[in-house]
């Protein structure tokens, strides 16, 4: 059997305790920024049983009026990343230029966009079940 030396054991024990303490601290006080020791907060919020569910999308408009959905696939930016920086987009809609630029560099030759906007669809919820109704709101809009 391969046995560990006393030093090998102590080092590993210390590493285990330090990582464990960091993870525990991250769970109690940490935020996502403390990756990888941040809290495991996936789906940890508690929206009320009748609170509408926001469903965010980003749209581009070509000069002809055609609407292009801007997604992870054609911009490299995930929807959750747009939502994560939502406050910054709302405070300064010209940041949407970065999304247009990302779209242009992912799709060379695609028609230029004359508008980029973030639309939040609020889906109705009652008794913690979807009602099937919704309203749309444009929360940020940028025109070059």
């Amino acid at each position, binding site marked *: 059997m*391969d046995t560990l030396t006393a030093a090998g054991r102590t080092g590993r024990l210390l590493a285990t305790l330090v990582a464990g303490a960091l993870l525990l601290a991250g769970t109690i006080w940490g935020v996502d920024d403390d*990756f*990888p020791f*941040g809290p495991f907060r*996936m789906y940890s919020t508690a929206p009320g049983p009748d609170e509408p569910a926001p469903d965010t999308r980003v749209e581009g408009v070509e000069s002809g009026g055609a609407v292009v959905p801007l997604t992870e696939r054609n911009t490299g930016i995930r929807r959750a990343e747009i939502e994560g920086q939502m406050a910054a987009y709302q405070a300064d809609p010209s940041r949407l230029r970065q999304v247009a630029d990302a779209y242009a560099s*992912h799709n060379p030759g695609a028609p230029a966009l004359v508008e980029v906007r973030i639309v939040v669809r609020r889906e109705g919820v009652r008794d913690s079940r979807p009602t099937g109704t919704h309203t749309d709101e444009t929360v940020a809009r940028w025109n070059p």
Partner: protein
Amino acid sequence: MEPLTRALFAPVPRGRVAAFRTLVYLFVFLDLLIFTPWVRSHASVPGELYQPLLVGRLLPLPTPTPLLVHGVFWVLLVTALAAATGRAPRLLGWTVFALYFEWMVIAMSYGKVDHDRFGFLVALAALATVGRARHGDATLTEAGGWALRVTQISVVCTYFLAAFAKLRFGGIDWVTSSVLARAIIRRGTDLADLIAQVPYLLILAQFGIVAFELLSPLIFVVRDRWRYRGIAFFYGFHVVTYATITISFAPHLVAMTAFLPLERVRPIEWVRRRFARTPAAAGT
């Protein structure tokens, strides 16, 4: 203290470490190509959208450029494959760990942090501390036992501590909230849309999730047969999650194989034996 350290260093066959190592490094290869291909597309996302994580600011890691992203991608792809062979386990192990960690900083510094790979990152770090281990070698190793054990603990922490995050961010009302309804509205499959129609089923599921997360550490005290049933239940939970809201937690699922007697899975040996048998049978 004594029983705890004994559990922490409980030896495992070297063959198990070898199999886990191959699986983990092959997953890195597949993760780059198939599971999280969007990381690579951050190469052509403007640097202004990069908001480095704390670790990225502390080190300090550079703002991703196309050269950096594609460079890490290709070097990681090659070193992960090399590491999967089990050669130079420490050198390749630490190299893959460092590159994959940087890859994760590139992935999660644009406004969204994922929580599906703590166990996997621990596996990558811990595997680099175990020396050579050949497939099929039944010799017991304490270093390998520790590496698998800390991966197991990290996997269970991902469940157990998630219950506390729910209490911290959602409060006790989490169990009766519309959190699953919201998840289904945002990314539900047809199956999920059906489930969502059943009154109180989602709320029941929320009670079930918290119960399972809080009870998950029991996996360490139950006997073998129940432990494997428990692991099967964990995998089943992720199958349902994937079938309803298409969230796979793939790296976590790979890390969870640290609970299994992987040394019994010998695909190359099986193929070799099959070929060895065929000519002999033809000669008779």
